[in-house]
Each structure stands twice: as structure tokens, then as C-alpha cells.
């Protein structure tokens, strides 16, 4: 088993490289992804190696980036779009909802809409406004799309490749704040299917589920809870749409308690979906109401305050206490 240590940024870069080597129809498109290698250097060196025709620096217009990726898909290309930051995906929302999500259906299956929209997301990097949002719920609500998120370098390496190979359009959410953290990457074997949830830590008292950057916080909270005698099972949802609901239900059937963690506000969100769906399927197992720990219902604050906006270890522990004491 060839494993090696690398950052999530490097893992994504290597994953993209593998996919481009494997399939000449794979293109990358985005702002500053060429010479600069992207503002996060995820595409570093790829334009040099694959040329300007395959790694395309785009004029600054997100609707056009996605809209032309749609046309390229119709022509048989598979474009991996980089949106520079979460908050800049909205100009492309119309193309995503009206074309990307619907053209496979509208063409009776003739058009292959296998494109990937890479979306650096969530906060924690101390940036200015619009650089720390969590727009995943908008896409999860949209029929025709799939939404996934990685939380480790190994997942990043494999999930980006699996996404590129997949024939449905995928919103690929990357937790910016984890780009520079290192982890083991297995270069031979994918850890699991693209749409599988994974138990990151086993426990018996409470199930806490999250994705992306939240995982690290949740694992810390689980560690702290252990110290207080509470055994937390931690699940990385990985696929936000569709949810791997069986893994969640199985866990809650064991623990009887559920907490969903996310950075976006909780109204009409992936967290709402998790709680609603698990509450339904594991009704008799639930010993306490399913709770959500999420960003507050305010525009993302100036980042000097972001640590108190994003779910903290303390807020997760508080929720753990509440479900344990219920």
C-alpha cells in the first residue's frame, strides 16, 4: 500500500493531475488558476504541464465560467470549475440551477452533465466578507445536483477523482481552513464510495455528524466529552446530497441521540434535513430530540468574530450535554 503524507491542497492538486492524465477530455477552468495556480494553489503547475487549452484562465464572470462549462460538457468535455471563494458562486446560480441541474433530464439523457464545481467553503481563514460562506444547502435542495465535501487529504485526493469520473454534476465543497493540514494519502485504494458517510470515531452515547471543516472541531469535542464520560460517535457525512442516511440511522439506533453540525445558518439546511430524516427513520430509537449546532442566522460576521459564529467545541459540548440530560 503506497501511502504518503501531504496537505489537502496538494492532495487535490494530485487528484486533479491524475484525472487529467487519465482523460484528455478533462479541463480545468477558473479565475487565476493558470500561472498563479489559483489563489490557494490547488492547480499549481497544472497549466504548465497540460497547457492553456486544458487549464483555462477565465475572464471574471462566474455565470460564464459555469455556462461555458455546460457547453463544453455538451461537446463531450468534462470541466472542473474552480469558484474562487464560496461567496462568488452566486452569479453562477442561474446556470447551475437552470442548466447544469436540468440539462441531462431536458435532453432525455442525451447530454452528459458530468462536470464538477469546486467550491472552497466554510470559514476559519480570517478573510474579508464573502470568503467564508457555506452555500451547500442551496445545492442540496436542488434536484439534479449532487453535493459532496472532503475533510481529509485522503478523501480530497480520492473524492475529487471520483467526482470527475461521475456522470452527474457535482458541487465539490472544500474546507479552505483545512487546505494546509497534512494527512496520510493512500495512492492505491479509495477509502470508500463517493457517496458514503464514514464513521470517524466510534461511540455509544451520542451521534454527532458534520462535514468539511467541522469534523476537526467535532473530533475535538468528542475527545473532551470522553473526558467527561460521554462516548461520542463521529460521522463524516461526506455526501450532503444525497445523504448516506443508512449510516446515520444505524448510528442513532445505537446511540439514541443526534447532533448535526454545520457552519451555515440552520434554517432549511443540510442540518435540518439530517435531523428531519433521521428523526423519522429512527423515531423509536431517539432518546432526545435531534439538535443542530450551526452558524447563527446572521450574515457571516467580520472574521474577528468568526470563532464565535462557527460551531465551537463548547457549543457542540453544550449540545451533547443537552441531549444527554434530556
Amino acid at each position, binding site marked *: 500500500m503506497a501511502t504518503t503524507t501531504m496537505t489537502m491542497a496538494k492532495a487535490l492538486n494530485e487528484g486533479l493531475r491524475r484525472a487529467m492524465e487519465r482523460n484528455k477530455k478533462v479541463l480545468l477552468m477558473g479565475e487565476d488558476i493558470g500561472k498563479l495556480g489559483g489563489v490557494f494553489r490547488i492547480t499549481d503547475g497544472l497549466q504548465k504541464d497540460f497547457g492553456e487549452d486544458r487549464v483555462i484562465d477565465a*475572464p471574471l464572470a462566474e455565470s460564464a465560467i459555469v455556462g461555458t462549462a455546460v457547453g463544453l460538457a455538451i461537446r463531450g468535455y468534462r470541466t472542473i470549475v474552480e469558484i474562487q471563494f464560496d461567496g462568488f458562486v452566486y452569479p453562477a446560480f442561474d446556470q447551475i440551477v437552470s442548466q447544469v441541474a436540468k440539462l441531462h433530464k431536458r435532453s*432525455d439523457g442525451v447530454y452528459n452533465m458530468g462536470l464538477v464545481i469546486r467550491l472552497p467553503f466554510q470559514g476559519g481563514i480570517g478573510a474579508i466578507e464573502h470568503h467564508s460562506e457555506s452555500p451547500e444547502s442551496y445545492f442540496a435542495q436542488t434536484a439534479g445536483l449532487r453535493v459532496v465535501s472532503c475533510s481529509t487529504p485522503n478523501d480530497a485526493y480520492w473524492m475529487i477523482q471520483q467526482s470527475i469520473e461521475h456522470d*452527474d454534476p457535482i458541487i465539490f465543497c472544500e474546507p479552505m481552513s483545512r487546505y494546509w493540514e497534512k494527512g496520510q494519502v493512500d495512492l492505491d485504494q479509495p477509502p470508500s464510495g463517493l457517496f458514503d458517510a464514514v464513521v470517524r470515531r466510534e461511540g455509544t452515547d451520542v451521534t454527532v455528524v458534520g462535514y468539511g471543516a467541522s469534523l476537526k472541531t467535532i473530533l475535538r469535542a468528542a475527545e473532551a466529552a470522553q473526558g467527561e464520560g460521554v462516548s461520542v460517535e463521529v460521522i463524516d457525512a461526506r455526501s450532503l446530497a444525497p445523504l448516506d442516511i443508512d449510516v446515520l440511522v444505524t448510528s442513532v439506533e445505537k446511540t439514541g441521540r443526534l447532533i448535526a453540525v454545520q457552519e451555515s445558518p440552520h434554517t432549511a439546511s443540510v442540518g435540518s434535513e439530517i435531523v428531519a430524516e433521521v428523526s423519522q427513520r429512527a423515531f423509536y430509537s431517539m432518546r432526545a430530540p435531534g439538535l443542530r449546532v450551526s452558524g447563527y442566522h446572521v450574515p457571516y460576521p467580520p472574521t474577528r468574530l468568526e470563532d464565535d459564529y462557527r460551531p465551537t467545541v463548547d457549543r457542540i459540548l453544550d449540545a451533547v450535554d443537552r441531549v444527554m440530560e434530556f
Partner: protein
Amino acid sequence: MIDEELVQLLTPEGERVAQPDYESTLDGDQIFSMYRDMVIIRRICNEGTSLQRQGQLALWAPIQGQEAAQIGAGRAMGPMDFSFPTYREHGIAWCRGIPPVDWFRLFRAVSNGGWDPQKYRHSVPTVVLGNQALNAVGYAMGVQRDGAEEAVMAFFGDGASSQGDVLESFVWAATFNAPVVFFLQNNQWAISEPSSLQAKIPLYHRAEGFGFPGVRVDGNDVLAVYEVTKRALEHARVGGGPTLIEAFTYRMGAHTTSDDPTRYRVDAEVEVWKHRDPVERVKSLLVHEYKVKKTALSAVTAEADAMALKLREDVLAMGRPDPITMFDHAYAAPHPLIEEGRREMIDMGISGGSH
């Protein structure tokens, strides 16, 4: 309307106009065949309207008045060119060889597409104004990467030309020198809004500001539309880059069968445009210059009538799809919510489950 900016090869009276830059390359047979196309799509369009009136269609978007623009453009396209239409490009669909009944699936509300877009090299209709202009440029970027000598047509209206997507598509086409022809049918109206609301100067000028040529052609003159489009497509195929063609024309009918134009435009305007009818002027040319006989003309009318009758039958035969088909092709790969939905429909007896 008839101004210096306009490329015109045939006057409303059917007389030839000398245009050194765009000499007509069509012979009598070809012109006759275009006349036939125009008569047929007009007839089919009328059938659409009457089918809708009779409750057989959810909606119909007529093209009366725009036949020359569409047949001229459609016939100029080569077999390997690819086009991106709106909801109104029936004439283009005709030229691409798509059976008329297929255009009606959308309007009978049994499909959101209607034909195999790869087979006919004519995309499914785009209803969200302007989206298709970007899709067309993207497709054209693919053509470039394939090194193919093909061009792409993006259709949109005067109203849609205000959308960010259309304007961004100009930026991209210019930057990437994409082999795309933007074909803007300025039919003077966007539902109730006159084209003067979208632009204070002729729309074709926009292209120049982005660094590629724009040309205004008499959209009721099939000869002129054909030549102008043909040259633009050739230009695109050999790496010359994009062109914006503004076909100056008129929507003689309602926006759609849901619309009531009497609320916002005066009859006199419609009357003026009747004198510029695109079908009449070719007919006049055929009769006077090519001595086409009355019998030949009435044969076309009869053929069109027969097609409309056949079409009507086909449309009426178009049944309600099995509801379970709504799950087909929503995703390419298996999806749990699709399975769940299918199961529910079968369990509730809404569908037998075949599809």
C-alpha cells in the same frame, strides 16, 4: 426601417438590391426551396396556434413574420454546425431536419426537450433568457479544442440581449475568439416591451464594443439573411472569430398564445410590417424573375396543408406520459431519492412501474 445600416438583397416588393459585399449565391431552385420552407413553417405555426386554441397545447410561440430570419439562418448552417435555440426557433428546427411533431412536445407539455440534440446538432430549447448564449460559446470552445472546422449558432431575441449571460458571452467569444455566430432576432418586441427599452442604438453595435463585428440584416429578406449568416459561419469556422448578426424583423403575432398584444401595440404598426412580409417578397421574386408558375406555388401550399394535417394527428396522438418517467434521466447514476420516488409511485398505484 429600411436604412443604410441594413443589409438587404430584396426589397419588400421583391426587387433585387445591389449589395457588393453580400452578393446572392442562390439559384432559382434554392430560392424556391426556401420559399417552400417558409410556407411550411408558417402553416405549421398556424396549426400550433389553432391546436392551442382548441386546448391541445399548453402554449404556442408563433413565428409569423420571422420566417425569413429563421429559414435564412437555418439554411446557411452546415451539417456539422451546432445551434442553441430559444423556445421560438421552429424554423431552425425545421432546417435541422427535426420532425415537426418533436417541436410540439414542449408545447404539449409532455417533454421539456423533444428531440435528440446530438443527432440533429440542435440543442434542446432554452427558456431562461440568455443562458444558451454562454452554453453556445462553451460548445464553440470545445470545437476549437477538437480542431474541428465547425461553427456554433446562438439564438436570442432583442429582449434577451439585455441579460448578463448574453453580454458575458460576448466577452468570452471575443477573448477566446470562439467560432460562434450570435443570431439576434430583433422582432421589435419582448412580450409587451419595445426593443427601444433594451437599447437606445441599434443592437448590432454592441458587438463592436467587445471587439468583433456586428451586422444588421433585413430579417424579412431571406436572401440577405442567408448570405450574411453563411459568411459569418465561414468566418467562424476558419478561425475568424465571432460575429453578431441582428436580424431586423417583426413578430406579427402574439408573443405566445397566452399574450394579448392589443394591450400594448397599435394596429398601424402591424399594418406597416405586413407590407414587408418575408414570404410575399420571395414569392414575388420567384414569380417575376424566375417565372415560377401559380401551380408550383399552390403545390407548396397544398403540401404545407397536408403536413399540418398530419402534424395535428401526431400531436393529438401524443398521450400523457407515464408519471414514473419523471424520474428518468433526472440523474445519470442511481440516486436513493429517485428510487424512493419511483417506489412510492408504484406503491400508490400512480404508475405500473414500466417506463
